[in-house]
């Protein structure tokens, strides 16, 4: 039995690097320090994997050799006039790098999952810039954390524990023990409430109630006294909202208005309405007091802002609020990146092409115009004639119209496990899992690079996705050279 420590977790953008993995006979037997998602990844990775590459023949996926699958894929990609290469966020930077080289060679469009995640955030940041820092700075210094349109308890389960309110920083204490006490009090209160409700039900006929809990008209006074505060703003109550010091439930698609209202109040202007986006103006005034009164605040925003009405304009308004706040105190803003290396995919793409996502190489040089060169738009317009998907599952996560277009053309998938996209694919490559069976580099959500470890040998001697991509690239170059020779010889 071997214990490997300081393992980086290849699941979400928090990229926790303190995992301890116990390995026995090349099988992971125990995972320490990971969240539920991390544990599932390390313990369940071998459950749904094909043993060999697959090619679709007569409607069924059948096993073939790696050489045959590489040859078939290279032929499809070399002969395509407008192929798309999509995914890249659930694998290491090294694989992305080879993917960009391949996209350039075949004149395709290379896009990563940020296009359906924080793509609008990237667009806003390019427009107006942003003030940010590392998660280490936040851990040690932040006394106010604002999660907006984000549910870290479910999507980044250890984010609060490692980087914000439940961590022991150099200059800020953890709120963990205080939270446990309040949780205990809350449970007692709920028990009493349930007992009262039961008693009422016995004595009275139960009347249907449709009452919506009213928003409080002011923020709790205790919020102003706490050393380390956490506020959640979202369209529905989540687990994260339960543990926050204050939860503001806003109406869907109204984030832009609320950001602008906060900016107005920050300038000491008056709002001529009673509420904005479902939040009473008095509460917004209190919120501005809390924001201005902190010593080091941070606004973490999730895809609740990028996926609803306003999209990039919501982020722009959020960044502008933070910029305004920096006239009074120190305030930072950071997107809650989802996939563990979506930040790395943006960074590698920027190094090699100049642009972070949605890069069109069809003219022989990189072009960037999200809305035109982004994959969902290309698919919705039915323009692509082949697709290579690496470490992603667009059939499960793209809108139906885009998926219908994606599965009409030849589809090649490189992924450690079978998923919805593999089921619809024409060529499937199982590969080693980066961060479990292969080494690599990934970028945390604050753009800090961390090494991914190899904790077990790849089962069935699977190659890494970067090695499979290299072989496809080599074969594509061979085909193109041969075609050029045939043309040259008439």
């Amino acid at each position, binding site marked *: 039995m071997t214990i490997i420590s300081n393992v980086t977790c290849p*699941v*979400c953008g928090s990229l926790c690097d303190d995992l301890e993995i116990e390995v026995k006979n090349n099988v992971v037997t125990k995972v320490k320090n990971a969240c539920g*998602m*991390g544990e*599932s*990844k390390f313990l*369940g990775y071998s*459950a*749904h994997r*094909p043993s060999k590459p*697959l090619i679709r023949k007569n*409607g069924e*996926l059948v096993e073939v050799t790696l050489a045959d699958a590489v040859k078939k894929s290279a032929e499809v990609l070399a002969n395509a006039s407008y192929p798309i290469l999509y995914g890249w966020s659930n694998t290491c930077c090294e694989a992305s790098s080879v993917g960009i080289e391949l996209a350039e060679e075949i004149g395709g469009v290379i896009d990563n999952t940020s296009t*359906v995640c924080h*793509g*609008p955030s990237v667009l806003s940041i390019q427009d107006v810039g942003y003030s940010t820092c590392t998660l280490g700075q936040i851990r040690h210094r932040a006394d106010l954390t604002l999660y907006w349109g984000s549910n870290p*308890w*479910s999507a980044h*389960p250890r984010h609060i524990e490692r980087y914000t309110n439940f961590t022991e920083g150099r200059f800020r204490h953890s709120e963990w023990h205080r939270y446990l006490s309040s949780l205990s009090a809350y449970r007692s209160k709920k028990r009493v409430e349930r007992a009262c409700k039961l008693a009422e039900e016995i004595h009275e006929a139960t009347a*249907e*109630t*449709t009452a*919506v*809990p009213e928003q409080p008209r002011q923020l709790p006074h205790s919020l102003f006294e706490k050393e380390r505060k956490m506020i959640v703003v979202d*369209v*529905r*109550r*989540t*687990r994260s*909202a339960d543990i926050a010091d204050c939860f503001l*439930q806003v109406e*869907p*698609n109204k984030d832009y208005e609320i950001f602008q209202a906060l900016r107005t109040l920050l300038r000491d202007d008056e709002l001529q309405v009673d509420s904005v986006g479902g939040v009473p103006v008095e509460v917004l005034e209190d919120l501005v007091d809390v924001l201005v009164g902190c010593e080091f605040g941070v606004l973490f925003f999730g*895809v*609740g802002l990028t*996926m*609803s*009405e306003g*999209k990039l304009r919501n982020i722009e308004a959020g960044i502008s609020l933070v910029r305004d706040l920096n006239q009074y105190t120190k305030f930072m803003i950071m997107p809650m990146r989802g996939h563990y290396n979506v930040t790395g995919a943006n960074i590698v793409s920027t190094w090699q092409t100049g642009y972070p*996502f949605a890069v069109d190489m069809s003219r022989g040089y990189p072009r960037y115009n999200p*809305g035109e060169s*982004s994959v*969902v*738009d290309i698919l*919705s317009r039915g323009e692509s004639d082949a697709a290579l998907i690496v470490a992603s*599952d667009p*059939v*499960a*996560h793209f*809108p*139906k119209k*885009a*998926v*219908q277009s994606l*599965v009409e053309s030849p589809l090649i998938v490189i992924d450690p496990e*079978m*998923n*919805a996209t593999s*089921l*619809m694919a024409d060529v499937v490559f199982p590969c080693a899992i980066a961060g479990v069976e292969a080494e690599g580099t990934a970028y945390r959500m604050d753009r800090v690079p961390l090494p991914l470890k190899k904790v077990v040998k790849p089962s069935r001697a699977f190659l890494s996705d970067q090695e499979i991509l290299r072989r496809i690239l080599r074969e594509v170059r061979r085909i193109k050279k041969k075609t050029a020779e045939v043309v040259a010889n008439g």
Partner: protein
Amino acid sequence: MPSLSVTLLTGRTLRQGQGKEYGKLSDRYWKSVAICEIDPNDLTKLGIKDGKAVRITTVHGSVAVRAVKSIRGSHPGRVFVPYGPWASVIVDPETHGTGMPSFKGIQASVEPAGDEERTLTLQELLHAHYGKPRGSQ
């Protein structure tokens, strides 16, 4: 049959995250994403109980999923479906020139599913919406 006009939200849940990491073809994944969290009062209005199938319809598509009583707070008129193939067939593909479709805040209607309807498995869903009969490993 009762029908409710609602705002559809999609998003991440911890169970969905665990299910996807455990395996997209697993029963665990199916159970975690082919669901719709509905406010308890809205369930009463629809006349159905927790665990029964509901049909969610938007202008972009329609899908049957299992209704789950929402345990956090009251949010009448807002339903939540975790990210996954079931949510994807009803979301808005319009990107408004940004590359990002609209996955949240979509107008939808919810009604109890017909007697013969049930929540499709992943393979059945792919076959029903994307046509090609595809074999799995």
